[in-house]
């Protein structure tokens, strides 16, 4: 193990908490668990679990970076870094060609642009509104009584997508209830919802400047319906990271990558 640096990233999001352990650029293990009202404890739990799965002890980890909404509560981390930088670093490490990243998380949505060296160029976030976020789909799947993981598959069954014109998720909910009462099929409504969500997201993307090499990260990236709608709306192909890595873990991966970058500096100093 001598010479090999082990770093970890812990991403405490609003809905899920993730921890990832990495050695010299290779992922050893990761864990995705639900977030709780006690982010400090959850952070510790996912972190310990990921170390366990990697077959190492916490002492083997040279540097830990915390990120996500609860980043300040990752008390054992050496540093905390914003999820924007971490998603950028994570996506770039998986795919160097990436220039635009869309991260659709539970509570917010971000569009991030990178320069040719993977440096953060610009970013935009949605404002205090659930319209372009995972929460929006969460609420809607409950109204439709389907599991959130089924949304992607159901989207592909749509024959005549419903039109959801409301940009506000609260009003969209009543619109969905209307559609149900009018007898619209569930797949058609879902496709309508995905199109509607995408409209909000695409504004953010175009704000930071759309670049063809685009990836989607965060939990919602697993929803194929959203990916379809996004690539239709933006008129560009979206590279799927899923064949390479679980898109939900990108933030934690980025944190581990940043930890490795930092290791040469602060953490090393501390270790001595």
């Amino acid at each position: 193990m001598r010479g090999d640096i082990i770093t970890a990233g812990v991403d405490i999001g609003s809905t899920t908490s993730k921890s990832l352990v990495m050695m010299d650029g290779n992922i050893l293990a990761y864990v995705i668990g639900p977030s709780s009202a006690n982010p400090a404890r959850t952070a510790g739990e996912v972190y310990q679990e990921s170390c366990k799965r990697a077959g190492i002890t916490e002492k083997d980890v040279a540097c830990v970076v915390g990120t996500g909404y609860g980043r300040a509560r990752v008390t054992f981390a050496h540093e905390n870094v914003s999820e924007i930088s971490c998603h950028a670093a994570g996506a770039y490490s998986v795919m160097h060609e990436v220039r635009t990243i869309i991260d659709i998380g539970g509570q917010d949505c971000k569009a991030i642009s990178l320069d040719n060296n993977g440096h953060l160029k610009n970013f935009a976030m949605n404002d205090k509104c659930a319209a372009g976020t995972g929460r929006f789909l969460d609420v809607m799947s409950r109204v439709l009584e389907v599991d959130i993981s089924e949304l992607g598959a159901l989207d592909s069954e749509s024959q005549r997508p419903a039109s959801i014109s409301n940009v506000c998720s609260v009003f969209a909910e009543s619109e969905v209830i209307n559609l149900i009462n009018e007898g619209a099929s569930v797949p058609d409504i879902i496709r309508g919802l995905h199109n509607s969500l995408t409209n909000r997201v695409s504004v953010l993307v175009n704000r930071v400047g759309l670049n063809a090499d685009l990836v989607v990260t965060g939990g919602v990236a697993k929803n194929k319906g959203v990916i379809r709608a996004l690539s239709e709306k933006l008129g560009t192909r979206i590279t799927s990271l899923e064949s390479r890595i679980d898109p939900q873990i990108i933030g934690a991966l980025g944190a581990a990558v940043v930890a490795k970058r930092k290791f040469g500096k602060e953490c090393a100093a501390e270790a001595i």
Partner: protein
Amino acid sequence: MEKTNEMLMKSFNRALSELNNPYIKEAQSNGKKVIGLFCSYIPLELIAAGGMVPYRLKGQPGKDIGAGTTYLSTRLCTFSRNALSLALENDYSFLSGFIGNNTCDQIRRASQNWIIKKPAQFNHFIHIPRVYGEENVSFFKDQLIELKQELEEWSGKKISDDDLLKENLKYNKARELLRKLSMLRKYNKPVLSGSEMLTISAAYHQMPVNDFIPAAESLLENLLKEKTSDKGSSGKARILLCGGMIDEPDYIAFIEEQDIDVVADAVCFGMRSYRDDVDMKMDPMEALAERYLTHFPCPHIGESFSKRWETIKQVYKEYNADGIIFQRLKFCQIWGVDSHNMSGECEEMGIPLLTLEREYGFFSTGQLKTRLQAFVELIEERKEAV
């Protein structure tokens, strides 16, 4: 050092401690009338020359804005609703006069509602031209003369050219002091923080100029004594803050907690109010019209972007800033349109820009923190890349 600042800042903090602050109370007990006004386009000098105290209306963070919302709806900015709520609920009843204006639709409507629902003893509404050509400055001068006459009639005191010249000079002095204080932020380790500077410049609008000048002089003198050279660096990102109405030093303090020094600004309670002086060689009324209509412009003036942007760029350079934070209240239309130009120009110049939308007196800390932190990281990365 910080302790000393705190002590010297005391007079300015006092001016912001409550709406009817101790300076205002004292002026009133000496028989002075206090006139409330909303905007950086209304000459403070003119009111002072009439023996009155100009008072820039502000909001009160934490105030329940239900009363204002009843009249202005939820579609107007939270500052206008906050200020109108204060008026409707008699928090501003200590004012003897009120001057409304139309620099933006929101303040115009808030002013009108104010005059109807809670008229002061003296009420006036002034048109601020939205263009600053020759014809417009001359029309603005006519508007000011009208205001002057009404003030004279109401107060029974004539305002002579001498009165005006005296006040013009005094206010130039106050603005010069503000500029000198602001310059202390040019140091690599700024001597004054952004939130302190906003406290001082907001206080300038909230207290009699006769009280402000000695307080500012003593602060400047003390700071200069302690800080004779530019030593060390704070190591923080140096930010120019621009955008719409902001009178809450706490907002800047929050920004500055995230590894940021707000070293310069272009906001109406800040540098926009003290960068330009009144010409002492001109006819005093003409000089006021000229200064107030053509000063570091607010975007409510059509065709003003290039002037605004040139000035911002100059300040950005002077203060050696690393990036710009553009903040605006939600529903602020004038800055909401201007943000397009800002983002375009910043991109072209390679200036890192963070656009923040906010509500008056309320900071949604989680999201704001993430954005600020990411912005600092972005600036650092760019610096490393260079």
